[in-house]
């Protein structure tokens, strides 16, 4: 089965019903995407499929074949996506486990809604749980990232 992950094609030999998350982490070694609940309840495993946020723990890998998969490792080749920069500037992360999923969901939001309101952010990220409770910093960082989307990536 051919998978297109972060712009690179991979040939994998795995059962068709293996969750995409298992393939990313255990077969391709892309361990930035986290396993949280395994049932699409927490958002830790969020990746992009054709640019849209997706819970990779409940998608059979066969359903992702031939589609464009982006993980946290591929969001920006230098880790310099506006969301990643905003996260660093505001020191959002506490334990960090949920943050790849948070960042991928935030990036998906900003790709469709350039200047989100608080309500837009809450709606987009309500299913990404953070047990450290960094929600206020997450929301501030999404606003910060939204302000970086002008020419040159800055306001």
């Amino acid at each position: 089965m051919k998978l297109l992950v972060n712009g690179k094609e991979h040939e994998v030999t795995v059962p068709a019903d293996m969750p995409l998350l298992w393939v990313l982490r255990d077969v391709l070694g892309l361990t930035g995407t986290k396993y949280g609940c395994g049932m699409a309840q927490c958002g830790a495993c969020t990746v992009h499929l054709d640019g849209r946020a997706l819970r990779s723990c409940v998608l059979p890998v066969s359903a992702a074949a031939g589609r464009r998969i982006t993980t946290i490792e591929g969001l920006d080749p230098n880790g310099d996506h506006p969301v990643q920069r905003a996260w660093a500037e505001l020191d959002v992360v506490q334990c960090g486990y949920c943050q790849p999923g948070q960042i991928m969901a935030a990036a998906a939001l900003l790709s469709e809604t350039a200047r989100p309101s608080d309500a837009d952010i809450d709606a987009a990220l309500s299913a990404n749980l953070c047990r450290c409770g960094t929600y206020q910093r997450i929301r501030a960082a999404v606003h910060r990232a939204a302000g970086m989307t002008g020419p040159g990536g800055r306001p």
Partner: protein
Amino acid sequence: MSQASRKLVLAAAAGLLAFGACAVAERSRPEGHDDFAIVQKVLQHPRCQNCHIPGDAPLQLDDGRVHGQNVVRGAHGMGTPGLGCAACHGQSNPPASYGAHMPPGAPNWRLPPPGQKMVFLGLTAGELCRSLKDPAQNGGRDLEALLHHVSEDALVLWGWDPGHGRVPVDVPHDQFVAAFRRWIEAGAPCPEP
């Protein structure tokens, strides 16, 4: 009154009673109403009405509790940017090997759009019937388009194959479609209230 006259009066009375009973029966069961009762039973089953809601937060499971994760309808019925319905609901139910409590799936998992919510939840038979037929509320569909929708839409059909731990719609799909067709052929009458 003579014996013959009494027989005549009794016969006339019996005839009137029979006519009256027939008229009452016709008033209580007009053509099409029994079929719409079947349609209503399907549309107000949790598999259908959980997403045909007056608010913007979908319901879930057999008891129709509010969907977890604070998910909402969104501008097009497909969820919100960053949290679309398809983030968790795939093109089909997850494999059985995934076990219980997984998000079910079907093509175009969605709610009706906010401008045409096609509400089923909490309506009387008459209200449901009238809103179902109203193009302003049903996505601009005429009766034949409605019949096609309930006959072939993959998300509608999911209601009869909802996956692990969910009760399917309890009227067989072919009987539902047949009742829907008979209701249309009867002029799509709406019961009161």
